């Protein structure tokens, strides 16, 4: 696999220039970072040009980097009162205007050459974030982009039918954003007096059973491996 990814990396540099932002990640996976303006052009080139031939878009995943690298439980430094305990409630400490808050990762597969590539694109800052749709390049993007729109609120310009797909009819908000609470915003019950189902704000407290901690573990540090 690594031979193959090296060969692919060479081809990508040959096609998109030596300054193409190509990351070598875990398990020999290649990630090509592309600006929103160049997305369609790059995608078409990746699909059609010999040596690349990514005929298939297998996966499209949106990521919200709002609280990336933030832990809920400080374990690195002790204070006079010992380590901090549990979780401090409140809104996420980063503002919603964070640049590069959202990213969309396109996972491409070439059946003829048997290699994979991840294409990552950061929509420009602003709400709602917008990206051009790759639906015309790979038709399989249709539902995947609808899902990313539904769960993250990313608008895909040029998509033929950008409706919500997984959430309920009439749902408000984008539930997979990191500032959307896990317990949701509303709860539903049947009201016997009104003889209909009513929506109310949730009345349960959000709970964290296990706080998020980040610990340095030198065993997995690539620099420490012999």
């Amino acid at each position, binding site marked *: 696999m690594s031979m193959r990814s090296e060969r692919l990396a060479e081809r990508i540099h040959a096609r998109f220039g030596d300054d193409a932002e190509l990351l070598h990640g875990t398990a020999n996976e290649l990630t090509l970072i592309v600006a929103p303006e160049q997305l369609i052009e790059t995608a078409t080139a990746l699909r059609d040009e010999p040596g690349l031939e990514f*005929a298939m*878009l*297998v996966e499209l995943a949106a990521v919200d980097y709002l609280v990336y690298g933030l832990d809920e439980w400080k374990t690195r430094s002790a204070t006079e009162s010992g380590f901090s305990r549990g979780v401090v409630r409140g809104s996420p400490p980063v503002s919603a205007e964070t640049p590069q808050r959202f990213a969309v990762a396109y996972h491409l597969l070439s059946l003829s050459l048997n290699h994979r590539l991840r294409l990552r694109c950061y929509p420009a800052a602003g709400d709602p974030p917008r990206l051009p749709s790759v639906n015309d390049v790979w038709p399989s993007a249709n*539902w995947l982009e609808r899902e990313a729109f539904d769960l993250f609120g990313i608008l895909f310009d040029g998509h033929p039918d950008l409706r*919500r797909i997984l959430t309920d009819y009439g749902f408000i908000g984008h539930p997979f954003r990191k500032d959307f609470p896990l317990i949701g915003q509303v709860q539903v019950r049947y009201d016997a007096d009104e003889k209909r189902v009513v929506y109310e704000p949730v009345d349960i407290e959000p709970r964290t059973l296990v706080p998020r901690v*980040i610990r340095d573990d030198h*065993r997995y*540090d690539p620099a420490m491996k012999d």
Partner: protein
Amino acid sequence: MAEIRSFTMNFGPQHPAAHGVLRLVLEMDGETIQKADPHIGLLHRATEKLAESKPFNQSIGYMDRLDYMSMMCNEHAYVLAIERLLGITPPLRAQYIRVLFDEITRVMNHLMWLAAHGLDIGAMTIFLYCFREREDLLDCYEAVSGARMHATYYRPGGVHRDLPLEMPRYEGSRFRSKQGTDKLNEARSGSLLDFIEDFTDRFPACIDDYETLLTDNRIWKQRTVNIGVVSPERAMALGFTGPMLRGSGIAWDLRKKQPYEVYSEMDFDIPVGTNGDCYDRYLVRMEELRQSNRIIRQCVRWLRENPGPVSIADQKIVPPRRVDMKDDMESLIHHFKLYTEGYCVPEGEVYAAIEGPKGEFGCYMVSDGANKPYRVKLRPPAFIHLSALDEMVRGHMLADVVAVIGTIDVVFGEVDR
């Protein structure tokens, strides 16, 4: 003459052929479909978001509940993603056990698919035959994990425990004669591997039975031949994987092309179709049953001869043995930390894909170095296949929609997540 106008019809969500909670809005011209608009999400429970709020190991059980017809294959993709981020490889015996159970799962899934698909389009008998064999495989799940369906058996670093040396047996009851009980226990007198081997001896004849019922059956062919035809180019563009892609004639199988675990050691063939219709996909899946049977036999042979550990020894990731905890402080601490806080996974992102029974089941995982995944995105094959439903059913009759839904092998646990 009366004027004929097209109308809109609601198919599901409570329809036995909708395989769960599929709501289809069909625009019809008489009996002919002009447009199909699937409404999904009625079973959406935000598995990915839940997984982001829990330590890594606590979400393995959720993976079983995605595609609840191929439980261990879903676990496999999730566990594989964690292992790649951690940079660990399970011992060889664990890899063989995983391949063994992946294939058992594939057989189970295809049996369930065949039973339901047959029932949907009018072949009633096949249902009972398939469930008879599936029952034995569920017993294998139970023997190895304690649960018939939601096993939570694969763990990062290996599998939860070794294969049992004794297969659970039926107990006598007042509803069953002693003879009947003995007959049921005949294959269960030895270990789990004996039981599986006995199953693989019996199973090819069972597949012949199914094929006798269906393959040359006139009604079956009328319902499936030339229904839902997808060309190879179109199948690639639509993101098809698994039997849907192979049915269109593309020999693509991750087990062969990008082997994981010990699939590179296995001897098996990739069946492909020629026309890309429902009948070809049926034939592909039937042949996959036979090939899976071959792989299972190879695994059983290897596992008999090679005892060894089934998970890595690193107690930061795999819990210590129960016995050690009684008098070893270190083990007790490890156990406590592992089951409360979990382990931290180094920063990075990875996409791990396996060849699930329905197609490529992938898990894209982003970790920021915490004890919980930062983002988990699952790639359910049926979600992609269902998005092509509109294209596959256009111009067909209403009854063919059922055949196409069946051939996609859709399970809503994974489509809606």
